[in-house]
């Protein structure tokens, strides 16, 4: 009897996220798919609005990473007002960088504590009553307290630069609407321990050590779980350095060969295609040069450390060298190493925040520049979960006529499907019963990418997780829910 296993995580309203796994009569996996929320509606939502509203409007996409959308839209608007990054004043560019690295810092800290550490500390087979953030607190109180403060520090950086922790208004077309006052700077740089930049860097370094220690003791799990070859794409600085705010687009294949060689992202449509598949609400981006079948790629922390040549801060660079040595300099294709890469980026973000706070340009007074207006602009940033594309066209009345957004989760659509498929074939195949541990392994694969459900609703009303088993005729065989 053929079986269909349906896992519906995370969503409260139909159609936001679902895993389906099809088994044949011998319980072999014949197909697995990860379906996730439709994103396209928001692009229609911004049409007809003035372009200068876009940086604020798009923040409504997300309460977790609004800064990424804010800055990607602002960068596109910079192009519309006749500037690129090079045209911004030093104060504007550095204030935006500080905002962005604060965002990266708080998001990575949250992911480590909320999603990653329960799995690492308790294992996939642990009782769900223990395998959660409360379990982490009970066993590692210091770790939990630190995670909350790390996130809070990142949010304070955002508050100081964007005016609000959530849905700030700091970036405007051509610049920024405030600089950083000396008191704001000193509160972050020299605040009473532990709430200052140096302590945050130290804690981030210790989080990297925590992961490396876990890795030493759990090599089989960390190295083998959902490992599969892929291309990797991200922005890199023109000299090849890791850069979350600006740069050129680079992609490498699973062997490390450059398959997209540092191109100007204003030409992204020449290099990136988006495939529509009938069974999914979300598109599947690919590198045109490699085609739909082979051109899919990962984005996010793992991809960024695979594409960049070095990290331009000393502590993170040291960790980057250890990370690269592990694969002898070749690209790292192990899904759970995303957590390792994320923590190295947390450390790098802390170092960049400290270095920017020491830069007197943040107290400069030239906030906005504008030149000859254009009708089109494209803005890219590296959001916590990966490369984020914002593309707008406007008419003669400054109203947006076209918007195209490719979010990190869309870029990771195929890799997430591959990760779920790996679990299906390596954990679920041959099984006649779906255990809690098996289900959690599917979730671990998804959690590594932390898909963004930013445009999802957050209403009450549906189970956070439901598992359903169907026979070949579509009859429900079994159902599990949390």
């Amino acid at each position, binding site marked *: 009897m053929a079986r269909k296993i349906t896992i519906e995580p995370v969503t409260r309203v139909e159609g936001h996220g679902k895993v389906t796994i099809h088994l044949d009569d011998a319980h072999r996996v014949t197909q697995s798919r990860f379906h996730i929320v439709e994103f396209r509606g928001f692009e229609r939502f911004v049409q007809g609005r003035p372009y200068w509203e876009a940086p604020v409007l798009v923040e*409504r996409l997300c309460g977790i990473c609004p800064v990424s959308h804010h800055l990607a839209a602002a960068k596109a608007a910079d192009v519309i007002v006749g500037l690129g990054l090079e045209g911004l004043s030093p104060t504007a560019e550095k204030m935006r960088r500080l905002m962005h690295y604060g965002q990266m810092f708080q998001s990575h800290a949250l992911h480590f504590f909320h999603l990653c550490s329960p799995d690492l500390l308790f294992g996939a087979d642990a009782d769900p009553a223990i395998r959660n953030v409360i379990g982490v607190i009970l066993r590692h109180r210091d770790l939990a307290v630190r995670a*909350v403060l790390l996130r809070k520090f990142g949010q304070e950086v955002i508050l100081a630069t964007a005016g609000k922790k959530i849905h700030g208004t700091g970036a405007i077309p051509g610049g920024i609407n405030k600089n950083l006052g000396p008191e704001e700077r000193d509160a972050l740089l020299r605040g009473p321990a532990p709430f200052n930049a140096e302590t945050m860097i130290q804690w981030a370094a210790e989080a990297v050590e925590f992961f490396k220690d876990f890795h030493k003791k759990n090599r089989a799990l960390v190295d083998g779980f959902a490992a599969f070859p892929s291309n990797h794409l991200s922005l890199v600085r023109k000299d090849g350095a890791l850069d979350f705010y600006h740069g050129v687009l680079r992609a490498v294949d699973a062997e490390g060969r450059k398959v997209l060689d540092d191109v100007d992202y204003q030409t992204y449509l020449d290099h990136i295609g988006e495939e529509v598949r009938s069974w999914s609400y979300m598109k599947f981006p690919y590198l045109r040069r490699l085609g739909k079948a082979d051109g899919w790629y990962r984005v996010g922390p793992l991809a960024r450390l695979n594409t960049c040549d070095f990290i331009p801060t000393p502590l993170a660079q040291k960790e980057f060298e250890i990370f690269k040595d592990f694969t002898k300099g070749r690209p790292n294709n192990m899904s759970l190493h995303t957590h390792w890469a994320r923590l190295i980026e947390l450390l790098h973000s802390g170092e960049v925040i400290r270095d920017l706070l020491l830069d007197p340009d943040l107290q400069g007074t030239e906030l906005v520049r504008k030149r000859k207006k254009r009708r089109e602009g494209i803005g890219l940033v590296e959001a916590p979960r990966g490369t984020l594309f914002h593309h707008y066209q406007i008419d003669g009345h400054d109203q947006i006529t076209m918007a195209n957004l490719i979010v990190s989760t869309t870029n990771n659509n195929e890799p997430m499907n591959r990760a779920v498929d790996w679990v299906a074939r390596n954990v679920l195949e041959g099984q006649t019963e779906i255990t809690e541990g098996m289900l959690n392994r599917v979730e671990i694969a998804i959690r590594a990418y932390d898909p*963004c459900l930013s445009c999802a609703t957050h209403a009450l009303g549906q189970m956070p997780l439901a598992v359903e088993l169907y026979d070949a005729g579509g009859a429900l065989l079994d159902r599990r829910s949390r």
Partner: protein
Amino acid sequence: MKVLVVGVGNPGRRDDGLGGALVDRINVEKKGGQAPISREIGACPLSIKAEWKTQLNIEDAQAVQDADLVVFADATTEGEEPATLEEIAPAAQIAVTTHAMAPASVLALAEELYGRAPKAYLLAIRGYDFDIGETLSPQAAANLESALSLFSEFLLSLK
């Protein structure tokens, strides 16, 4: 008594914005000094702070532990019409995404991290249309009025 109202939801998804709409209305009434928001309980003035969040997260544990009483207001897809108000208890839950955290998990986090979880209620307001858009559906707008009445009655019942 310090009362914290946390409205949860995405105002870009029509009725999902009910929690935020309730917060907006409370803040408008606060400015106007309207009863029962401006009432006193015994000799103590009622202090109401109302905030909107797209989704709850770990830092909300710190915010709730400072309050004497917390009301989480959220849209519901299947709950009773027009709205319900029920007491909730701390309970830890597994997270699949950083993009959602249940009120009960926030309370559990507050209890473990800060040693106290305040008395808490969930005000669930029935919504119908969760499509992309900024305005509430007519039925949801009517339910919002009922939810405000329910909230006011609740405040008046506090002793």
